[in-house]
């Protein structure tokens, strides 16, 4: 369909919250102000309740850290500081900081070259962010180290999130639809829902959270095996 500038403008113009939406959002904003440091709730995530219980733990972790900003909000600069040669920027309203690693630095940290290890089906495009964001506290303890390796092809996708806090996945594995124990003793928690496939594995202290969409059974198996082996 051909369009002109006016039609485009009109279409944007219609993306407008209703008055009820505006009122609700403003009420929440002002409530947050009154409660100062109260953690903001995300009503949209309630929709996740229907998802398999196995995802709950991961969602809570991801959600908790998802409230941090990864860029300076004014688009220019704020009080960046140097730590161990890396730039660290204040993140959000807490005492947490974030630092950015390259993928190679991240592999060194994990002890595994994840992209090299993963057996992703051919023709998938690697859409992985080349910067890895860590959250650390003021004592330089790492709070969050996960990174998602993402591959896409048409309507199919592969997402593999990694963390050295592998123990966080222990409970999730046991809650999966099925568990599979491999000859080396590694156990994977696997859940399949229609075209969705998810698996949680801890291998050499590294936690892997796999989520694929529209892959064949063989492709999912190869991907999982590439992590186990």
């Amino acid at each position, binding site marked *: 369909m051909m369009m002109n500038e006016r*039609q485009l403008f009109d*279409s944007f113009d219609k993306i407008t919250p209703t008055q009820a939406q505006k009122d609700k959002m403003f009420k929440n904003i002002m409530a947050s102000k009154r409660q100062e440091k109260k953690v903001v709730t995300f009503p949209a995530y309630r929709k996740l309740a229907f998802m398999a219980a196995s995802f709950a733990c991961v969602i809570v972790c991801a959600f908790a850290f998802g409230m941090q900003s990864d860029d300076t909000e004014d688009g220019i600069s704020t009080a960046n500081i140097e730590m161990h040669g890396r730039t660290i920027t204040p993140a959000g309203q807490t005492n947490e900081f974030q630092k950015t690693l390259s993928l190679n630095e991240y592999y060194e940290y994990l002890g595994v070259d994840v992209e090299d290890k993963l057996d992703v089906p051919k023709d998938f495009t690697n859409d992985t962010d080349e910067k890895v964001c860590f959250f650390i506290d003021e004592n330089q303890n790492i709070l969050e180290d996960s990174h998602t390796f993402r591959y896409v092809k048409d309507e199919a996708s592969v997402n593999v999130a990694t963390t050295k806090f592998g123990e966080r996945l222990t409970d999730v594995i046991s809650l999966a639809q099925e568990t599979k124990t491999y000859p080396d003793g590694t156990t994977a928690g696997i859940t399949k829902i229609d075209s969705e496939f998810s698996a949680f594995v801890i291998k050499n202290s590294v936690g892997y959270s796999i989520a694929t*969409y529209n892959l064949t059974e063989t492709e999912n198996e190869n991907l999982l095996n590439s992590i186990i082996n």
Partner: protein
Amino acid sequence: MSFSELRSDEEIARLYEKYVNTVYRVAFMMLKEKAETEDVVQNVFIKLMNSDNEFTDDEHILRWLIVAAKNECKNLFKHWWKSKRNHLEDAPEPTYSDNKDTDSIMEQVKALPEKYSLPVYLYYYEGYKTYEIAKILDVNEATLRSRLAVAREKLKLMIGVNDDE
């Protein structure tokens, strides 16, 4: 405009009324989903309330809000379960009119990756110049122009090239 002024209920209410639609649109262009868009809008204005930035004027605030909305959306994208959830949930709720032409256009715009849709929105709706958008989105101006060109091609947009491009 000082921090203390921003903290007042009246000032927040004024800025909210003035810019909520823009923040909502920026977030919606990136997330394409109503409920998450609302979450982002709330968080952005909460961050504004708690920000100690020295804003020079309302335009400065608007640009800060756009960047904050973009960053807030990017934070959501970062997590693997975001893409997974997209597959699990139903299609985005239709939030605009029954006008088939307009909705068809919006569907095409929504189908664009964020790196194209956001510049298109800022250029054609908000009226920013390419160098201004480049600064807001923190990208090279040549890259920005290239993205606009690609977006136009994808949208089969029949519009002229302005002087500032």
